[in-house]
């Protein structure tokens, strides 16, 4: 029997998006100084979802002033356990509005509802819960160091996990006693603005969290603003470098979480069927819009044929399409610009003469979609292997010896994450100590937990998010 699952579309009837969203400054919805708005669209249908305030330098200044004011007059004086109560309250209210947040995340960003429902939103709430717990225990986290907040944190986040990245930034900053000016990405501002509503409903003192929207120029204004004591950025390595240049010579603290091009290594003694699943999860999770995506696959030559055959067959069962369908595995590419970038890389691979494999599924006619893609027989020197594609494209190489794979895995400017599949524990420990990556997953991939620090080596950035280490970028000690 040939069994195609009937459509199982999640209803959006119960959520109400506003026609227009303003900046959230000093606890109030504030019209943009520019009087201009930009559209946030649904990448699955190309329809406009809402109009969002376009920020400029004056808006940034207002937000920074209110954050500095709230820091000096309220937040830094408040007993830590009182701070914690607010953060717990935000976490609980996110859980209450989880369905709404998941739906908006999927509408605005194109990711499958299964992922926003089961991963993004619960994980974001968990980050608030986790850091709420630390707020009054900082002295125990860093004994004899007398940790103190830094002041105003300027935070700029990407479009791949909009709500989760906002949580990663805001939760530790607040727990450590800082106030925040946060800018969500231009293509995915909506869940951050719902989070602003939640923060308002939580009666957080005005100015402790300010959320302003706009393009890269707004981010640049935030970075150079004199009242920003700390800059936290997650996004591309290119922008990260320009931020670091802009901050050179200032006493602003900086943490960066940038690109990646992770090595995903499969040895012939691995649990092959689970490794194939891990490879799929590693590269196709969130359409490959993941900085730690396992985008360079290294397979030991003795099992390469089997792994690649199974990978191809597994890819045929992936359901690509409407992100709101509960059975969709791979949704829409986040924006037209990103789809063009991915297509440019696909062409580059083809021009290099690489063997390309794609599934035979038909893509929806409207919206931005990309077939899950393999490039086989790639070399370290191919552009598709060297550069971060940030899409559902996996480059496969084979290797023979362990020394060879370590050398190749590290032969990249990035160092965010890596994955290793083998049944032998000693091999895992050998590799984890030699791979230059901030996170190494063994016999699994893309596992996250609020208690576990995440961050990079080399051009993937510095500073950690999550866990006790995630407090450090927000404290002077």
């Amino acid at each position: 029997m040939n069994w195609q699952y009937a459509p199982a579309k999640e209803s959006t009837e119960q959520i109400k998006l506003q026609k227009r969203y303003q900046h959230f400054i000093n606890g109030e919805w504030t019209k943009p100084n520019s009087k201009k708005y930009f559209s946030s669209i649904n990448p699955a249908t190309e329809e406009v979802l809402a109009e969002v305030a376009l920020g400029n330098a004056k808006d940034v200044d207002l937000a920074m002033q209110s954050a500095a004011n709230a820091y000096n007059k309220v937040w830094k004086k408040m007993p830590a356990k009182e701070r914690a109560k607010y953060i717990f309250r935000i976490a609980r209210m996110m859980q209450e509005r989880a369905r709404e947040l998941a739906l908006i995340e999927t509408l605005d960003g194109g990711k499958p509802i299964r992922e926003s429902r089961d991963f993004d939103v619960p994980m974001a709430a968990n980050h608030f819960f986790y850091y709420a717990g630390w707020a009054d225990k900082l002295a125990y986290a860093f004994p004899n160091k007398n940790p103190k907040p830094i002041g105003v944190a300027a935070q700029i986040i990407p479009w791949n996990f909009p709500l989760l990245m906002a949580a990663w930034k805001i939760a530790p900053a607040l727990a450590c006693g800082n106030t925040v000016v946060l800018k969500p990405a231009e293509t995915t501002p909506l869940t951050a603005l719902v989070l602003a509503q939640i923060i308002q409903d939580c009666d957080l003192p005005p100015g402790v969290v300010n959320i302003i929207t706009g393009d890269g120029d707004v981010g640049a204004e935030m970075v150079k603003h004199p009242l920003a004591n700390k800059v936290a950025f997650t996004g591309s390595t290119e922008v990260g470098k320009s931020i670091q240049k802009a901050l050179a010579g200032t006493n602003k603290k900086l943490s960066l979480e940038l690109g990646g091009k992770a090595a995903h290594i499969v040895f012939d003694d691995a649990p092959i069927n689970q490794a194939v699943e891990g490879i799929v999860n590693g590269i196709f999770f969130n359409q490959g819009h993941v900085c730690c995506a396992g985008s360079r696959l290294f397979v030991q030559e003795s099992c390469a044929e089997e792994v690649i055959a199974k990978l191809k067959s597994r890819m045929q069962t992936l359901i690509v399409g409407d992100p709101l369908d509960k059975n969709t595995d791979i949704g829409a590419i986040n924006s037209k610009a990103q789809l063009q970038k991915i297509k440019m890389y696909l062409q580059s691979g083809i021009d290099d003469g690489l063997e390309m494999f794609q599934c035979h599924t038909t893509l929806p006619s409207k919206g931005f979609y990309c077939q899950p893609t393999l490039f086989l027989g790639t070399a370290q020197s191919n552009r598709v292997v060297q550069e971060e594609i940030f899409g559902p494209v996996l480059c496969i190489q084979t290797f023979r010896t362990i020394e060879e794979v370590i050398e190749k895995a590290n032969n990249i400017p990035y160092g965010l994450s890596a994955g290793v599949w083998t049944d032998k524990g000693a091999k895992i420990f050998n590799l984890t100590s030699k791979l230059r990556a901030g996170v190494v997953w063994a016999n699994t991939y893309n596992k996250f937990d609020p208690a576990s620090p995440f961050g990079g080596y080399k051009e993937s950035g510095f500073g950690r998010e999550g866990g006790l280490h995630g407090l450090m970028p927000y404290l002077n000690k």
Partner: protein
Amino acid sequence: MAFDITKHTAVDQVGIEERVARFNTRSIKGESKSKVLKLALSMIDLTTLEGKDTDGKVKQLCQKAMHPFADMPDLPRVAAVCVYPNHVKTAKQALRGSNVKVASVATAFPSGNSLLAIKMEETKWAIEQGADEIDMVINRGAFLKGEYQKVHDEIASIQSLCNEVRLKVILETGELSSLDNVRKASEIAIHAGADFIKTSTGKINAAANMPVTLVMLETIKDHFIKTKKMVGMKPAGGISSAKQAIQYLVMLNETLGPDWLNPHWFRFGASSLANDIILQLGKEKFGSYYSKDYISID
């Protein structure tokens, strides 16, 4: 033929459980749901394996197998009726002309603790009585002791008696203690000539579950990739709701694909599952549930 256990493939339990969790997020609605519930009904081995079984009870079960629910005559019949050898003749007569198969347990079911000669004798007898399928148990004592060749050879000996009769090999996964062992036992059974591999006897508490079944399906798939030979799968025990059956079939669909989505290659060993499927199909058809009093208990 000697069985080479050194080639056994590793299984990662965490990975298996995550994959199962993924299958269980599939949302099966409307048309898809009715279609797959009917398929599930047609895959059931309706089972009674008790010391207190009577000829009367077996006959009732056979009636149910052929005509699951009088109110919905378009329902498919089940795949087989599964009984002890001493009831095979009765079942065979009751099912005459219906194409519902008679499966008989054998080989000192459920423990398998007897002499090979006795197990063979019992199997022969069940086949003589008219069994279309034999559900044998593996020798878990030998398996856990590491005597894999012995386990293999016993299965091969029973298989040599079967000819046209299809052989299902019960691994009793609840006693095997790890997924690695489930994989190993599956490889042994397939190598020894099993037509089906089956999870459980239903006689111990740890019966079929999805992780164990997934490991077995993957073994079948790997065997198919190597040899192009299909092997059937039968999870047994512990599957009592229609929802569970759908989850198993999603797993089957996405692991082995459409060729296995039929009663020739997949069975559910269950007694109460049929009634829940009837209830759910009734709901799909009429919009509300039947009272359970309308549905026969056999």
